[in-house]
């Protein structure tokens, strides 16, 4: 697998570190990890350049993950970039909503590195 540039959007810095560690444990070779603490910051990161993978929480202050997902549909640097939601909001309606507006995967917290691997690796292989 090629080196991967990831953007992790979560208002918890602890959770951002755990997501990064889970990606590495899943065998994903990260060349760069960009972090954002809400959707608005995430849009700012995407304004500076593209990434290969986005992992995003839903419940965040300023701009939540669903609004972020909506807004990146028109961001050039996010075109074709797979987005996986990682969130405590595990209800069916949240999953359906996120998938209907462009998310490619949905992981419920608490999660294992194995679950991250199952959801993320196929998406990265699709991009080869």
């Amino acid at each position, binding site marked *: 697998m090629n080196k991967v540039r990831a953007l992790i959007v979560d208002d918890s*810095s602890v959770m951002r*570190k755990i997501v990064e*560690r889970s990606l590495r444990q899943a065998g994903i070779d990260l060349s760069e990890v960009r972090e954002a603490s809400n959707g608005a910051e995430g849009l700012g990161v995407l304004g500076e350049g593209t990434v290969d993978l986005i992992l995003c929480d839903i419940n965040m202050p300023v701009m939540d993950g669903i609004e972020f997902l909506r807004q990146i549909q028109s961001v050039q640097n996010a075109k074709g970039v797979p987005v996986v939601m990682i969130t405590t*909001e595990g*209800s069916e309606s949240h999953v359906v909503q996120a998938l209907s507006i462009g998310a490619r995967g949905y992981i*419920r*917290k608490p999660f294992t590195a194995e679950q991250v691997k199952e959801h993320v690796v196929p998406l990265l292989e699709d991009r080869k």
Partner: protein
Amino acid sequence: MKSANEVMTRDGVPEGWLPLLEVAVREVFEIMLGSKLEPLANLDPTPCEFTAMVGLAGQLCGVLTMRCTQNSAQLMTSKMLGMDPKDTDQHMWDAIGEIANMVAGNFKNKLTGIGEHCMLSVPTVITGGDYSFHSLADAGPLEVMFLFEGAPVMVSLEVHS
């Protein structure tokens, strides 16, 4: 999963919620911290310096509270992040809030027909043990107590109708 339309206990909380809360806590500790919690029957008068709270709104209204000692908070953070306990100071608030958030989310996702219509607040974490807790809840609270690495951890759910 449990249905929302269960028989109520005398505390006004559906039967079956207490074991679900217990499972929700255990799962978070096992998956995210790699720790098995031991049951705790009685609570010592140990001061709990960390209190994390997550609000629930919608079909299920209330507040989930997790309390623990400073040492426990330090160790939880250490296990969660894989770092030395003495290096955890700047991450403790965030880590404890996230654990409470995951417990609340995991619990509500186990309630068929309720989790769908219930939102969580961002967590709030209080430090210090000298405070009084006044709840407007009219049911419960549901309380579960565990030993985490020999120190108590208490999780309670206060429910508003």
